[in-house]
Every structure is written in structure tokens, then in C-alpha cells.
């Protein structure tokens, strides 16, 4: 209990003095995870929507694969990306290992299936609702996708925020591909791992509380949006 209290104090101290290192790694955490979110969403949102309305032979298999990818252990993703980006690996020439870019790549791979899956579920529901009307109005596939995306904006935002939550709290993959280099690839989660390893629990907890606050903010945002979404239908 003492340690938790010490951690809380450490957190407040860091935040109120706007500790330089804290600000740096918090910004970097946001940079990495937000970038991963933007890229993953750009891929996953249209894909999930398209999957909801398109009928093709391997549809069930694709959806099963997507759901399976959601269960990929992040640390395994990290290991594979590391082997790909290592100088001895296929993409070594790009020199991306141990950089924020490598971390972004790993996180995109981790959260894209999640975003696509949630998007797909939401768009299926919306498509079921709009199906008869849109068919009757003789809409093209393109018009359907745009209509669904526009009217499903809230659900899509929820999917994106869920992906962000996953990314900001991830530690295994980015530790491996980022290397937790001070002033280069250290973020909140990897810093917590480091300080814990040094036995400096107060500082680790302090960082942890900052991370919790960030994650909670995101989750409250999801909550607020979902409720508004539900109100809209009844």
C-alpha cells in the first residue's frame, strides 16, 4: 500500500512539475500510437466496411481469419517484425530497426485487425438496417460504402478509439523492435518496464498512473460516443 501511495505522489510530482523526461516520453507515446492509429484506420475502416457489404466465396474464411488475427500475441508480432527489419533480414536495408517507425509498423499490424473486426460488426448491423432501402434505390457499391461510412461514423470512431487503446498500452512488441532507447524510442510502457527492472517502483508507478489517466480518457471518450450512438436509434 505504501508503494502505491508513493507511486501516486511520484505521478503527481512528475505531472505538476512538467518533468522534461515525462513530457518527452508521453509525447513520443502519443506520436507512435496516434500514427499507428491513423495508418491502421486508413486500412481497416474501408476494408471492414467493404467486407460487410460484399458477398464473395471466401467471405466467411476472411472474417474468421480477421477474428483470429485479433488474438495475435503482440510480443510475437514484435518478434516477427524484428526479424523482418533486422539488418540480416529481408527489409534490413531500410535501416528501420530501433526507430519509432519500426514501433509504428508493429503497432499497425497489431491494431488493424481489431479495428477492421469492430468496423465489420458495426457495418453489418447498419447494412442489415439499410439493405432493403439501398437496394431499392438502385445504389452502386461505391454509393453504399459512402452512405454506410457516413451514417456509421460514430461506430467507426469507436472502433478507432478501441485500436488506440490497444496501441497505447502495448509494451512487448515495441520493446523488441524499438529497443527502448533513451531519447529515441522510449515510451511510457517501455519506461515502466525499465524502471520496474531497476527496482524504482515509485517512478514506475508514477509513469503507470500517467498511462492509466491517458487510457481512461480514451475509454471515457468511447463510452460517451457509444451512448450517443444508442440514443440515436431509439
Amino acid at each position: 500500500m505504501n508503494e502505491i501511495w508513493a507511486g501516486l505522489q511520484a505521478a503527481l510530482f512528475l505531472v505538476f512539475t512538467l518533468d522534461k523526461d515525462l513530457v518527452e516520453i508521453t509525447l513520443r507515446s502519443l506520436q507512435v500510437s496516434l500514427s499507428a492509429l491513423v495508418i491502421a484506420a486508413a486500412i481497416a475502416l474501408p476494408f471492414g466496411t467493404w467486407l460487410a457489404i460484399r458477398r464473395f466465396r471466401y467471405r466467411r474464411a476472411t472474417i474468421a481469419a480477421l477474428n483470429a488475427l485479433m488474438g495475435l500475441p503482440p510480443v510475437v508480432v514484435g518478434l516477427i517484425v524484428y526479424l523482418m527489419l533486422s539488418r540480416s533480414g529481408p527489409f534490413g536495408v531500410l535501416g528501420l530497426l530501433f526507430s519509432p517507425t519500426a514501433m509504428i509498423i508493429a503497432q499497425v499490424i497489431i491494431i488493424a485487425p481489431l479495428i477492421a473486426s469492430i468496423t465489420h460488426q458495426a457495418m453489418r448491423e447498419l447494412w442489415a438496417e439499410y439493405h432493403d432501402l439501398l437496394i431499392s434505390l438502385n445504389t452502386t457499391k461505391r454509393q453504399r460504402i459512402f452512405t454506410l461510412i457516413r451514417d456509421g461514423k460514430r461506430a467507426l470512431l469507436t472502433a478507432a478509439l478501441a485500436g488506440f487503446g490497444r496501441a497505447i498500452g502495448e509494451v512487448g512488441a515495441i520493446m523488441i523492435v524499438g529497443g527502448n532507447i533513451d531519447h529515441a524510442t522510449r515510451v511510457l510502457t517501455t519506461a515502466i518496464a525499465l524502471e520496474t527492472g531497476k527496482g524504482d517502483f515509485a517512478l514506475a508507478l508514477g509513469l503507470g498512473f500517467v498511462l492509466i489517466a491517458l487510457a481512461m480518457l480514451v475509454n471515457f471518450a468511447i463510452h460517451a460516443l457509444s451512448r450517443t450512438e444508442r440514443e440515436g436509434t431509439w
Partner: protein
Amino acid sequence: MVNPTMSANLSQVIVKRRGSVILGPIDLTLARQGITIVLGPNGAGKTTLLKVLHGVERISSGSVDWSVPDELARQSQAFIFQKPTMLRRSVRENLAYPLQLLDYKKAEIAERVALWAHRIDLGDMLDRSAPRLSGGEQQKLALGRALIRDPDVLFLDEPCANLDARSTREIEKLLVDAQSSGTRIIMTTHNIGQARRLANDVLFLLNGKLHEQGAALAFFKEPKTPEAKSFLEGDIVE
């Protein structure tokens, strides 16, 4: 844009679902004008017939021929479902939607939206969220949205089934107005009173087959088949 020469011809149409026949064989030639009411007990195949005519139900055999090419036919038809589908947008945006799909200019869209909003008596609710309207208001909005692009044919599937008296009356008035502007109306209902009020001719369906058809006056006064007679008297007909 109403094309008074559009008519339909169904020839030996059969619709199967899960192996069993739910509609057909049907042979039918639709008149060119007026309001056709499709009557019959539940499960007779009324909705299926409407969907076949509109081209959204696959037929197992037979043919459906409109006097114009299929693409054009679809474009000039509209369908009203029993439970209206509201886009999760405002009343105004719902009305504008079909016109946006057809790339109408903004100015013309605004003009038509204003006109029809007034006609369906939702003029002061343009910015309300459509899913939040009452049942009657939603159905009127659906009707306005259907008529806003001047369709040649309007299909309605039990449009007033869930509505109160006032809304029913308003919908019926809109239908009559649409018909006098030249829109062909084909509607199902199991409200006999409504059928009497609106029909120019009647199609009576029973067990997926066209049991009787004829001009409205004659049908209601002196139905030819005993099943139709029982139905009109309010009996349960199988």
C-alpha cells in the same frame, strides 16, 4: 418524368424458397394506370409478388417484362416498406438522399425538398433527426422520399399497418394525389376498408396463386370466387 406507357407482364413466374414454392405460377398483365390493391390473407405471397415486380426478389422460373429496359424500369420505381427505413440523418437529408444519388444540382435538390416536405406536412421538422420521428411521420417521410424523384411506379407493402387513423388518412390522401399526377400505385393491404377506399382494381392472392382479379367496383360488389367472398366478409381463409 412519369412515363405513362410503362406496364408489366408476368409470365409463369415461380418463386421458390428452401425448395418449396411460395409464389406461382403467376400469369399477370398489369394495367397502365390507377391504384392496384393486392389483397389476401397473411402468407399468401403479397409481399413476394411486390418484390418480384420491383426486381428485388429472385424468381426461380418464368419472366417479368416491363415495357422498358430493366435498368430504366428500376430507376423509375420506388418501394415503401411496412416498417420504413430511416437514414440516421435529419428529415431534410433523408428527402435529399435519392436526389443526391442521381447527382441532382444542389439548388434543385433544395427546391424539391422544400416542396415535398410541405406536401407531407413535415415542413417545420426538416432539421429533426429522422429516427426520432413517430411511426406516422416516418412513413410520411418515406413516402415523400419515394415520390421526390417522380417515379412511374410506386410499390407499397402494407404501409399503414402500424399507423393510427390520422396518419392513415394522411398517407391515403398523398397516394391519391400521387396517382392523379400519373404515378402507378401497387399496394398490398389486409385492411379491407382501405382497399375499398383506394382500389381501381384488385388482385386477390391465395396460397401463392392469383385467385381472382378484377375491377374494384365489381370485385367488392360481387366477388366471383367463394374464397374471395369469405375473405371480404372477414372470415379466415386458407
